[in-house]
């Protein structure tokens, strides 16, 4: 079965979780989901794929899926052509895992038009996404959580005459992470994360 056949089959049948293969946290979670999604008979309830480097391949999965957006936030591609993003994608993933679907129904629970458990999950996802760089994400940039601390540090240095000189290449990241190849397509076992 070649890549395009696999893509077509996946597009038609099961949800697809896309994860950032260059982020150690995301990779670890992707592996966990892939292991958890497999039943004893070998069936898998949700497919797990690294985002990879090919924008056209992603558009073949869903024509509205942009590769930059895929790296920005977690996506689950649904068989009906819709997409779940962020906390909604996490909830959808949990709904599809045999070990977690028993409690995942709570995320759809509505109280006066408000989904409290989904809200908590959304906040938890936001926090995790913001701290990913602290846990070894080489491609996620700087941690948003630490930004205020960095601002205060720089401000204090300037006040004390420490002469804070911004780096001439403040947005330059080593190419080592970017050069790593995607691990595998879904349906095959993924090797263990190289940073864990």
């Amino acid at each position, binding site marked *: 079965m070649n890549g395009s056949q696999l893509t077509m089959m996946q597009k038609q049948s099961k949800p697809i979780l896309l994860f*950032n*293969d*260059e*982020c150690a946290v995301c990779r670890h979670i992707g592996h966990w989901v892939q292991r958890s999604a497999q039943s004893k008979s070998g069936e898998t309830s949700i497919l797990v794929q690294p*985002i990879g*480097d*090919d*924008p056209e391949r992603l*558009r073949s999965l*869903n*024509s*509205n*899926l*942009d*590769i*930059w957006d895929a*790296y*920005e*936030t977690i996506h689950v591609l649904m068989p009906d*052509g*819709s*997409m*779940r*993003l*962020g*906390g*909604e994608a996490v909830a959808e993933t949990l709904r599809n895992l045999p070990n977690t679907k028993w409690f995942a129904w709570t995320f759809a629970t509505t109280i006066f038009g408000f989904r409290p458990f989904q809200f908590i999950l*959304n906040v938890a*996802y*936001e926090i995790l*996404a*913001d701290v990913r760089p602290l846990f070894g994400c080489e*491609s*996620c*940039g700087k941690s948003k959580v630490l930004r205020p601390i960095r601002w205060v540090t720089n401000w204090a240095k300037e006040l004390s005459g420490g002469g804070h000189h911004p780096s001439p*290449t*403040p*947005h*330059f*990241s*080593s*190419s080592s*992470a*970017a*050069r*790593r*190849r995607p691990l595998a397509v879904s349906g095959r076992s993924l090797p263990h994360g190289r940073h864990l």
Partner: protein
Amino acid sequence: MINETVEHPRTTSLKALSRDKIQTITSSAFTRLVLEAEGPIAVEFMSYGCAHCRAIEPVLEQVAEMVKPRERIFRVNIAVEQELADSYQIQGTPTLVMFLNQNEVGRVEGPSPTLSSVLTAVTQPFES
């Protein structure tokens, strides 16, 4: 970060297509489109998984519109074109390399994602 459910029909997205203002080129097309072409050309060596490349992307697309047709900007994905990145000794992403008549005339590593910074990076090497 976004938390939402997006319901999309399976039709071609104009939004998605319109974002590709910068052509991504492969090593096979690099010689023809960059080295054998005339006029100023800027090449962004990038990777889709790089947060800094993501930050600079909308600015670079804006700059590409501003400098067109005097100058062309291409994109090289170093995760795919590793040999090309090695041959130009790309140490990180994003790196902008400017070419004029087959010669590299300038290079900027990790420009700040501001319009003025990127515009200066891709035009200044051709002014001297």
